[in-house]
């Protein structure tokens, strides 16, 4: 008997995609702007997020979800900014999935929020496949990681909406070539916005907040 060929045409991550679409709809209905952060371990996501939360807080109701394999250290750090923070510990899983976001938000009333940040597990590979329902995916690299990092991890840079280069206060010591780094990012994701910052000194943070505000306004206008 000849084998029978059955057409399936089914996305492997269908469960995640369906849940992420549902999250995106709920965020839009409650008018919450959701941004996720992805980078290698040690790029400075938490420091950057802490400063961002502090700068946004006077004008907006912000909250954060933070993913790590283990420990609640990052959540404890972020709580210093005075906003609601929840830690997602993934155990051995190297990325966040839509289901984890849904579970972690239990009992949070989305109507009490304007902006929600999701800090992914430090990893430039696995998070690229998983939609979390975010409106903006922020990919980050620091000046100590090498200008060609985007060429080594093209997928995550290609799926991002904005790139942030961190630790600019160390640029001279690391002999960081900004133009080369910008060219690498542009090569894998043409036209992407690139913002250089130092969360430590505050360099570039005003430009970053301005960018973020423009994105939340665009998103709110699209939803209206």
């Amino acid at each position, binding site marked *: 008997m000849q084998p029978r060929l*059955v057409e*399936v045409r*089914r996305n492997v*991550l269908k469960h995640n995609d369906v849940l992420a679409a549902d999250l995106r709809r709920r965020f839009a209905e409650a008018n919450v702007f959701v941004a996720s952060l992805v980078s290698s371990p040690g790029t400075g996501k938490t420091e950057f997020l802490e400063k961002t939360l502090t700068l946004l807080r006077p004008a907006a109701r912000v909250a954060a979800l933070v993913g790590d394999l283990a420990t609640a250290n990052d959540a404890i750090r972020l709580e210093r900014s005075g906003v609601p923070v929840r830690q997602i510990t993934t155990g051995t899983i*190297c990325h966040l999935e839509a289901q984890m976001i849904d579970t972690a938000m239990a009992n949070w009333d989305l109507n009490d929020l304007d902006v929600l940040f999701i800090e992914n597990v430090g990893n430039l590979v*696995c998070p*690229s496949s998983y939609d979390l329902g975010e409106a903006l995916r922020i990919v980050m690299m620091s000046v100590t990681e090498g200008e060609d990092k985007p060429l080594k991890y093209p997928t995550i840079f290609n799926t991002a909406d904005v790139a942030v280069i961190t630790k600019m206060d160390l640029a001279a010591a690391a002999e960081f070539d900004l133009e080369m780094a910008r060219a690498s990012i542009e090569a*894998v994701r*043409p*036209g992407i916005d690139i913002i250089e910052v130092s969360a430590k000194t505050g360099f570039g943070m005003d430009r970053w907040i301005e960018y973020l505000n423009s994105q939340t306004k665009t998103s709110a206008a699209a939803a209206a």
Partner: protein
Amino acid sequence: MHELSIAMGIVDGAAETARDYPGQRVEIVHLILGELSGVVKEALMFSYELACAHTPLEGSRLQIEEVKAAIHCDECGVDEEVRSIQDMRCSICSRPSPNVVRGRELMIESLELSDEYAAAVS
């Protein structure tokens, strides 16, 4: 590495379809894998056998069709492969484009089923 959980997703998806065909065995799962999917073919092949163990898919084979990344080039007015995923420019006119039209696929395309009895005696 997340290929094992991806492989488990493939097994679940294929098993769900196969349930509509009682008495049939899944021989081959045809998968379409884009080069911008974030999934590594070799790691997925390795994980697939593990993911199949003790499931109705045990003994089946994973066949992967790889899809090159392509962008829509406004200049040429066509969908065209990029020079490489490190150089997202139209391979005809060399203009960069952010509009990815192919290469993110991670999809079960089809299953090849065979009669359980026939498979058992052959």
